């Protein structure tokens, strides 16, 4: 049976992993390779690296650290950050990333999703969606979220964009619920349930993890395939082995943490 995945998210700025609250005020957490290895050893199922300033700075992700990570770890990882063409994506994938995630550039030019799916297959193409509930109760997408001074609200409804991204060839959707991000009050179950009802490809929940219960709830109630979190893992507040033990006890299928790593 397919395991539910736990995915630490590493926001990268200037070659270091950083963490902000509600996408603001970033502080350095540690070096990229050191954290990648630590999470691999703790039983993370996958890693996501977001080069959070790439899109606002109009540049693509730095492929040098992508290759260093690819050499080092033996679990899959996804890279996001300013990938705006098939050539950008090819550079990152050929450096050793398993998947690429597009967000702002896909909103600017939705055909990018079709082009990436045609070039690499849908299994490599993740579409990240940053979403916030507006005053009228609708969830709508946000753009350039890596830089608060440039973040823009778009008129596009989150669920409409999810359906379009999927139709164009997204092989996985990461839904970043900005309203719950960084404040550790739990995932946005209502929004994720609404997304799940429309999402036929794997769906990754992002934003809001604070306790082990929150992970159990998002798997059990929103039926997501994976849960992404940053601060609770970076701070050590939740250790992945303990979390997996807890989830297994709640009847959720997870990949057991390996005891002896070296084969």
């Amino acid at each position, binding site marked *: 049976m397919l*395991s539910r995945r736990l995915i630490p998210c590493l926001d990268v700025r200037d070659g270091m992993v950083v963490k902000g609250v509600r996408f603001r005020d970033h502080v350095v957490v540690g070096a990229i390779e050191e954290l990648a290895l630590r999470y691999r050893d703790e039983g993370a199922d996958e890693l996501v690296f977001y080069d959070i300033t790439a899109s606002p700075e109009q540049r693509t992700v730095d492929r040098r650290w992508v290759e260093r990570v690819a050499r080092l770890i033996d679990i*899959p990882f996804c890279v996001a950050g300013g990938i705006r063409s098939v050539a950008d994506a090819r550079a990152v994938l050929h450096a*050793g990333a398993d998947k690429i995630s597009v967000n702002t550039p896909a909103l600017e030019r939705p055909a990018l999703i079709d082009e990436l799916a045609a070039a690499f*297959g849908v*299994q490599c193409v993740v579409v990240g969606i940053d979403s916030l509930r507006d005053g009228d109760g609708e969830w709508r997408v946000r753009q350039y979220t890596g830089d608060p001074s440039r973040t823009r609200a778009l008129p596009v409804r989150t669920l409409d964009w999810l359906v379009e991204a999927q139709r164009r060839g997204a092989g996985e959707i990461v839904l970043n619920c900005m309203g719950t991000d960084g404040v550790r009050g739990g995932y946005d179950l209502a929004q994720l349930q609404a997304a799940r009802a429309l999402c036929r490809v794997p769906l990754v929940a992002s934003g809001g993890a604070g306790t082990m219960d929150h992970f159990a709830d998002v798997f059990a109630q929103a039926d997501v395939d994976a849960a992404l979190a940053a601060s609770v893992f970076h701070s050590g507040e939740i250790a992945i082995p303990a979390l997996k033990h807890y989830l297994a006890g709640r009847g959720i299928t997870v990949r057991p943490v390996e005891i002896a790593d070296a084969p």
Partner: protein
Amino acid sequence: MKVAVVDSGGANIASVCFALQRLGVAAELTGDAAVIRTADRVLLPGVGAAAPAMARLRELNLVQTLREVSAPLLGICLGMQLLFDSSDEGDTPCLGLLPGQVGLLPDAPGVRIPHMGWNTLEPLRAVSLLDGVDHGAQAYFVHSYAAPVTDDCIAACTHSQRFAAMVQRGHVAGAQFHPERSASTGARVLRNFLEKGLA
């Protein structure tokens, strides 16, 4: 030992080479038939779609070379699917080293396609490739198409239906999952392949 990784144009080529490096093997990434013919081990990685991958092998003039290779040959992910007679993906004739046809995993309630993530291996035969891989070990899969469970299947997996997670027939083997990204289980499979061949 000479290890050749076929430059099949897939996106996971670097990852496969790095995984071999972690096992202490400097593999040669190559599209050269002479190098492949004289290698002690040949790996055929692949990510993407069957038709462009076969077109790439034809372009490199490697179809006959791969059919005739006598060293142990391991196909990975799409590389494993290419070992079969044909794939429904783009209705593509493949290498024909293994009988059977690769098909799309069917939709089922609550089952997402592509099959993406860690899933359980069900070993079916005691072969050296599976030494140290226990029933219930998990491996990382990312695919929408899969090969059927035939006599050549040495390990199965289930996602909407049971399919071949690993195959072996003589000197030809394949893994539908990504051993280069399957932590210790994947490293074990690669090490078995390098050290023991396909006994």
